């Protein structure tokens, strides 16, 4: 009796495991048919998102590049040439450049995932299509996180600049120490 119960438990667990491992089981037949029905509309939306993201990447990327190459780096260099303390700002610039490079990589991966998603025929492969949306969504979240971090570093640099400004030009003293 005990053995029969044990065998029953083992069989039940194995079956449950098999069912959970079966990829098709995560979507019902009704959901699969809904994906097929909405296929062309979803694809049009995704294509529009793809195009808008490409534009956003170009325009935002241009601004991010300009901030580091044409603004942060020259100011850091100028501060160093004037033998003033701008270590915090240099550190932020290094972090910013690292983050910018991360943003480029994360976006590249996201774009690849989205392009692959657009190539899947959702009317014939609804399950594969749906499963490919998840990693694309995750990757988009990573891009968003790196953008947030970049924006934080831009704000951080600005507040460090304000501190530098108030240190170098205190309100009661008009000229800086090295300006003679």
């Amino acid at each position, binding site marked *: 009796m005990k053995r029969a119960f044990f065998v029953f438990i083992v069989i039940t667990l194995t079956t449950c495991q098999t069912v959970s491992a079966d990829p098709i089981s995560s979507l019902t037949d009704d959901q699969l048919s809904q994906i097929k029905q909405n296929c062309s509309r979803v694809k049009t939306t995704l294509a529009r998102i793809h195009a808008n993201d490409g534009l956003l990447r*170009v325009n935002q990327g241009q601004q991010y590049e300009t*901030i580091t190459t044409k603004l942060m780096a020259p100011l850091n260099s100028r501060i160093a040439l004037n033998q003033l303390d701008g270590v915090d700002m240099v550190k932020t610039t290094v972090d910013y450049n690292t983050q910018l490079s991360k943003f480029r990589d994360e976006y590249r991966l996201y774009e690849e995932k989205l392009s692959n998603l657009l190539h899947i025929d959702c009317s014939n492969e609804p399950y594969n299509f749906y499963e490919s949306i998840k990693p694309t969504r995750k990757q988009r979240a990573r891009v968003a996180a790196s953008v947030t971090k970049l924006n934080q570093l831009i704000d951080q640099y600005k507040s460090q600049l304000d501190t530098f400004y108030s240190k170098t030009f205190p309100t009661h003293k008009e000229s800086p120490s090295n300006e003679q």
Partner: protein
Amino acid sequence: MNNSKRRIINIYNTWRQNQFLIMIVSVIIVACTSVAIAMDIYNTSGAAQVDLSRPGFKEVRKQANRDTTPTSYQSDGKITKQSLDEFKKLYQDRQKKITQSSFDPSVLSDESLQIFSNNSDTTNNESTE
């Protein structure tokens, strides 16, 4: 010994007779290899992602901003109040051009994409008609 020598001579003669064909095939192989390497660099370097001349970007191509404003800050010179004020202005101008909340992941949610919506494509088409 003679046989192998004759064979080498035969091969050489065949090569000489088909020199032009061999050149064409070699050129094609070199071109294909170069293109494959170039395409790989294009895709892996991230250049492809900022290339709006690709198909599918026709609609948005014109909206790409051309950066014409001179924003470069002088890397030499004294640090004065005016120079820092000038920097602050340039920096703030750039900061304003950045969209704060971009690449929102909820755009790809099931609800946003309306994947499981009951209004099928055919229903939508009918309603638009």
